[in-house]
């Protein structure tokens, strides 16, 4: 299979519902924690080393063949906010729909049958990457990059931030994305080979869980999460 499949899967226009989510940025903007490009960079850095690392490790573990049910339960355990668990499942379901059209496979059909309302997005991402012929490293790259590209695009809409500045933030974080992907894949290998899914990273940012619950209660908002 082609390495270029990674570009298809990682494309921000891949029709899997991500455009309606801000990765917590809408709540952070409203709370005054993101006011411009400098804050955005710090916000994305925090997200990369917490949500990004966890998502990368889960996606990689799914590629390496970890049990999907166990992974999904472990992802639940790492997501205290019910709003975020709901969003992760919705995005997983949407990703699976698009992926079944892009890379038809019995494994993806089986996953859709097993989780009709969706599994956690990073878990689905790993299974999808495998169906697309991609590696654990590729899947972790997708997950880690998504953890920062989502908020960066959202902040362009939320603050009318200069889109060149937002892209500059992503470019400056690239080396750190490499680092996080290495750690995520190593953790996934360890978990799959001996330690089990409980040993997967559990880095968290309580403020984003709290922000997600706060955001879910708003009557007027631009993004779904």
């Amino acid at each position: 299979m082609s390495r270029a499949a990674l570009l298809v899967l990682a494309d921000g226009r891949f029709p899997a519902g991500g455009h309606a989510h801000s990765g917590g940025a809408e709540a952070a903007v409203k709370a005054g924690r993101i006011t411009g490009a400098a804050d955005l960079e710090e916000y994305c850095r925090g997200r990369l080393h917490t949500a990004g690392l966890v998502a990368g490790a889960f996606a990689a573990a799914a590629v390496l063949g970890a049990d999907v049910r166990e992974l999904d339960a472990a992802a639940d355990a790492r997501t205290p906010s019910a709003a975020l668990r709901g969003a992760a499942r919705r995005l997983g379901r949407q990703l699976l729909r698009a992926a079944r059209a892009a890379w038809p496979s019995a494994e993806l059909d089986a996953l859709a049958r097993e989780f009709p309302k969706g599994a956690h997005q990073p878990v689905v991402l790993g299974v999808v990457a495998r169906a697309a012929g991609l590696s654990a490293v590729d899947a972790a790259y997708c997950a880690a990059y998504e953890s920062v590209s989502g908020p960066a695009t959202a902040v362009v809409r939320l603050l009318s931030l200069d889109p060149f500045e937002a892209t500059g933030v992503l470019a400056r974080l690239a080396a750190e994305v490499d680092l996080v992907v290495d750690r995520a894949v190593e953790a996934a290998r360890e978990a799959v080979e001996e330690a089990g899914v409980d040993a997967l990273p559990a880095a968290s940012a309580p403020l984003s869980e709290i922000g997600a619950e706060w955001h879910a209660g708003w009557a007027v908002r631009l993004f779904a999460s």
Partner: protein
Amino acid sequence: MHLDHDHHHGPVALSADAHRPDGSRRALRIGLGGPVGSGKTATVAALCRALRTELSLAVVTNDIYTREDAEFLLREAVLPPERITAVETGACPHTAIRDDISANLEAVEDLEDEAGPLDLILVESGGDNLTATFSKGLVDAQIFVIDVAGGDDIPRKGGPGVTTADLLVVNKTDLAPYVGSDLARMAADAKAQRAELPVVFQSLRSGTGVADVAAWVRERLAAWTA
């Protein structure tokens, strides 16, 4: 797309698949688009009132940043609450109805699972611009709603909604004398843009045209279930 020909044991459908996983035919899906304030939600409400005794109906709304359309329909009690779903669009309804339809597909499928069986699902898109059209992967037919107060040159200017929608509704004809819109000119321009595609002039204030829009929906449904 038909990945799985054995629908009885297949997983959920992908997009425009005409059948549900259990093999039954899914509901007809009609999209309503058009500029902000042209009367899309009011037309959805009028269609629900006209058709709800003869058909099993549900509505999906795509608001720009609120749930106002869904809340209006709930307040007006045009349908029971379990038949109305609001999709969140990240401030871009045109993305959610055309470029990335996954959330809307989930909404229509969940409505069929939870409130079904359904004959018809109306999908309203919050207006953001004149070029917003629905993907064929989401709806089977689309209605574009403009109004006479938005300027009587809109049919002349054309654009994908005005030109290609399966039905063009020119709403608020009651306001034409007050805003100086020339209905005959709008009709001629629409005809020039759309050739044989139908146009209905409607006023929800006086009720004219509502029956024509409902009759058009019935025809589409007859063709869908034939």
